[in-house]
């Protein structure tokens, strides 16, 4: 290992500009970053001049930096204010709670930050700037690849890493040896006058360009996905099926360029849903497994079995089917006054807490006649708990999410459900405006808490409703089609690869000068320059120097002649002090 020794020295402050002058051509073009120009004043060149000036501003590093700032700043409100895209319900609650703020927020598009005009403006400007930056940089980089590294600056001692020694080998011999050594280490090297100039690490620039291009690819993929995506939800009870057509969806959203002809032809059936829950301990009731066993088939294909889990969607026909939610669907049988079954089926109920306390509505639309033979409709409000606390113990809320002690409370109505009124209706709620509640013989509202297998008899021979022993489960699925995912992933991988190249590879130059000194002995000088300072640079130079030194060993010390000494060689420090300083 090399040992670092601190010597007491100082420099007058060197600014970047004087440094650049000192190194001249040699220090330039070590990257393709746009040159900074003083942004004072505009040009006096008319419209074209102004446009060019504006374009140069937009594609400058400073403006890119400002736009990056604005982008992160602009993203903040969307994380604090409910967003329509994420949770419509929360937005509505917020609007109800903040009546004065809402109009202002709406005007500023704060409920849709990420698709708002101002947020889009920021990232579009950023990406215009990015393209405007990449195109010239790529051209410049190709030019640099075609050219050769610039010749050595006048004074190598000014470079960040420097070494020198005297040798008896001829200068040409040293240069040839240096050229061979550097080329052997995959430097691009050539000899200019009295020195060898070499450069390595072009992959850094290539990586940086790749990274920025990959950002554009990712943006394009994201936009593509937004425009052509589709997303639909469907609730399915065990035993029921679904085929992928628009009419079968409970709800459906799609990007603006999506056409419903693009729906992949497939169908599936929910064979069974299994949910298990933590039985003991402080997190009793926390879900453990959710599994939906399905049978599916693609257009005309054979039936296949699959299990859909929370993190494992079913991939079929370019779509993905995700398991989103689940609940219970008690099976009920409704008979009319003459004992005829007018309704038999599983009714999905919506859970509203973690223990799946659920509510819903049972609607008997056709076929029912009251005891006088008059056509009517029936409606029941259901309140269901999979695990009942026990009569007289607390409230009616469920104690556990599994079906340990299922109980359903029902109350019935008759009249007109208004399903034919043309208004869209929530299947989980009753429109009671044209309904009358059944009363028991004491004139109280009819309500009954039922165990599976029990029947509630409606008054005055109006029929009955039976809570069957068989309780089904339902699962809801989201079927999504999102093109561009592959492209986004490719972009992401390219971005990481490019970024790693850009940040881990050093682009650096090495010069080896060999000239005959005044006393006839050859003086070798080596120096290295990197784009950013790195501890590796002096290490690499030392390594190169050592290799070259083997071919051009140090000449015996001449009679001390200060003129032959290369300028400004530091004094060797006391090793004892070096030990202390390293800590």
């Amino acid at each position: 290992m090399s040992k670092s020794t601190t010597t007491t020295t100082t420099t007058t402050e060197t600014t970047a500009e004087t440094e650049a002058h000192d190194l001249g051509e040699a220090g330039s073009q070590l990257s393709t970053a746009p040159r900074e120009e003083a942004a004072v004043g505009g040009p006096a060149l008319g419209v074209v001049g102004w446009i060019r000036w504006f374009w140069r501003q937009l594609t400058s590093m400073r403006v890119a930096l400002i736009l990056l700032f604005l982008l992160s700043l602009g993203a903040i409100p969307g994380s604090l204010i409910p967003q329509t895209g994420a949770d419509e319900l929360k937005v509505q609650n917020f609007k109800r709670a903040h009546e004065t703020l809402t109009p202002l927020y709406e005007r500023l598009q704060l409920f849709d930050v990420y698709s708002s005009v101002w947020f889009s403006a920021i990232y579009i400007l950023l990406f215009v700037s990015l393209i405007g930056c990449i195109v010239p940089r790529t051209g410049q980089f190709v030019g640099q690849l075609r050219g050769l590294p610039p010749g050595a600056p006048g004074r190598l001692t000014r470079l960040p890493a420097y070494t020198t020694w005297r040798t008896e080998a001829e200068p040409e011999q040293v240069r040839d040896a240096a050229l061979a050594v550097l080329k052997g280490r995959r430097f691009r090297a050539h000899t200019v006058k009295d020195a060898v100039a070499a450069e390595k690490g072009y992959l850094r620039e290539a990586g940086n360009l790749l990274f920025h291009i990959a950002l554009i690819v990712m943006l394009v993929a994201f936009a593509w996905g937004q425009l052509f995506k589709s997303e639909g939800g469907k609730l399915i009870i065990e035993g029921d099926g679904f085929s992928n057509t628009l009419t079968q969806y409970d709800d459906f959203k799609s990007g603006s360029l999506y056409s419903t002809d693009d729906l992949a032809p497939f169908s599936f059936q929910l064979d069974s849903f299994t949910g298990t829950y933590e039985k003991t301990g402080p997190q009793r009731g926390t879900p453990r497994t959710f599994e939906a066993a399905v049978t599916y088939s693609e257009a005309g294909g054979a039936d296949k079995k699959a299990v859909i889990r929370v993190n494992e969607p079913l991939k079929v026909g370019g779509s993905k089917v995700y398991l989103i939610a689940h609940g219970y669907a008690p099976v009920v049988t409704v008979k009319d006054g003459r004992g005829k079954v007018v309704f038999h089926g599983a009714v999905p109920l919506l859970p509203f807490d973690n223990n799946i306390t659920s509510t819903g509505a049972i609607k008997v639309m056709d076929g029912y006649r009251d005891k006088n033979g008059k056509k009517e409709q029936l409606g029941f409000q259901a309140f269901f708990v999979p695990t009942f606390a026990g009569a007289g113990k607390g409230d009616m809320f469920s104690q556990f999410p599994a079906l340990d002690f299922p109980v359903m409370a029902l109350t019935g109505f008759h009249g007109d459900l208004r399903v034919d009124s043309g208004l869209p209706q929530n299947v989980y709620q009753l429109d009671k405006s044209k309904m009358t509640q059944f009363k028991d013989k004491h004139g109280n509202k009819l309500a009954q808490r039922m165990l599976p297998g029990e029947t509630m008899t409606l008054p005055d021979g109006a029929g009955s409703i039976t809570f069957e022993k068989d309780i089904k489960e339902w699962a809801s699925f989201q079927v999504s089609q999102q093109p561009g995912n592959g492209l986004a992933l490719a972009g992401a991988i390219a971005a990481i690869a490019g970024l790693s190249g850009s940040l881990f590879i050093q682009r650096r130059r090495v010069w080896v000068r060999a000239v005959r000194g005044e006393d006839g002995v050859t003086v070798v000088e080596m120096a290295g320059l990197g784009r950013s300072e790195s501890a590796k640079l002096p290490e690499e130079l030392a390594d190169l120097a050592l290799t070259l030194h083997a071919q051009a060993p140090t000449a015996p010390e001449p009679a001390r002649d200060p003129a032959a000494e290369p300028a400004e060689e530091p004094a060797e420090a006391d090793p004892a002090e070096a030990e202390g300083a390293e800590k």
Partner: protein
Amino acid sequence: MNLAVSLAAETNESLARMSDMLIYSSMAVYTLAFFAHIAEWVFGSRSKVGRTAAELTATARAAAPAVTVRVNQGGSTAVLDKPKVVTRSGAGTRDVPDGPGAAGGTVKGDLYGRIAVSLTTLAFLIEAAGVIARAFAVQRAPWGNMYEFSTTFSTVAVGAYLGFLLARKDVRWLGLPLMTTVLLDLGMAVTWLKTPSDQLVPALDSYWLWIHVSTAIFCGAVFYLGAVATLLYLFRDSYENKLATGGEPGSFARSVMERLPSAASLDKFSYRVNAAIFPLWTFTIIAGAIWAGDAWGRYWGWDAKEVWSFITWVGYAAYLHARATAGWKGRKAAYIALIAFACFLFNYYGVNIFVTSKHSYAGV
């Protein structure tokens, strides 16, 4: 519940208790390490301290190199026969030597420093054992809630610091600030964030958890070390500025600042740390997006957690840009790095606690 299950549950219970014990023990040992570092600072003599002023005020010397790196000889020939590599600081930075470290270059201070590092290593091993015991107790990756994040987070931060020491990097000056924050982090974890060990909800149960969350914690721990170095850079830089303009810092400031590495070295250290971890942070976000794609059917939905990861990412990208932009190098870039880290912290504490997000975990 059958017998095998209850037996397993009991072992898990006792493993969980053992994990708690280990975490508490590690806190005790970290506290000792903390005091050892204090002793290092206090007993490190100030005699060797105070060289920066001399460096900055001595104007007679020419622009000679600041540091010489002697090439390793490999044996046979005499030292002077081999080329020496001379390095000098880059443009626009002061050529100031690094301070001698917290011990002030004294034997006594150094002894306390070594004791502190040994204790830190011990505490690290205990804490790591605690995290591993927790993983076995809950039979999954130990990153299901904030308590578990916090314990893993400090373990990884200390591990990274010890890694730097092992690689013979001059980072012992990080010891005291690190111990302070590790104790804070653990203190918060065991008092406010403590949740009984338990299983994950199915949405979190995926191998992406291992990938995404482990890299996120690792990135956070390393970004944290970068942020500490950045903060110290700002202090040291104003100290050097003050000296360079002929100011007279107080004796306390002098004693503390003189022991730190030079502003240029601190700046370089924090840059390297931040830059090196940035690609991994990029990967972390992408891995999270892939996971979200599997779990929720969309890979990017502008959920609060996603937004703040994005903001953090853009913040660090801005920092890297700033370092390549004239007029933004140095202090301004450092401020950006600190803001970016603040965003990371907010994402971790703020979003989990104050913002409702899809990423809310079992218990806190």
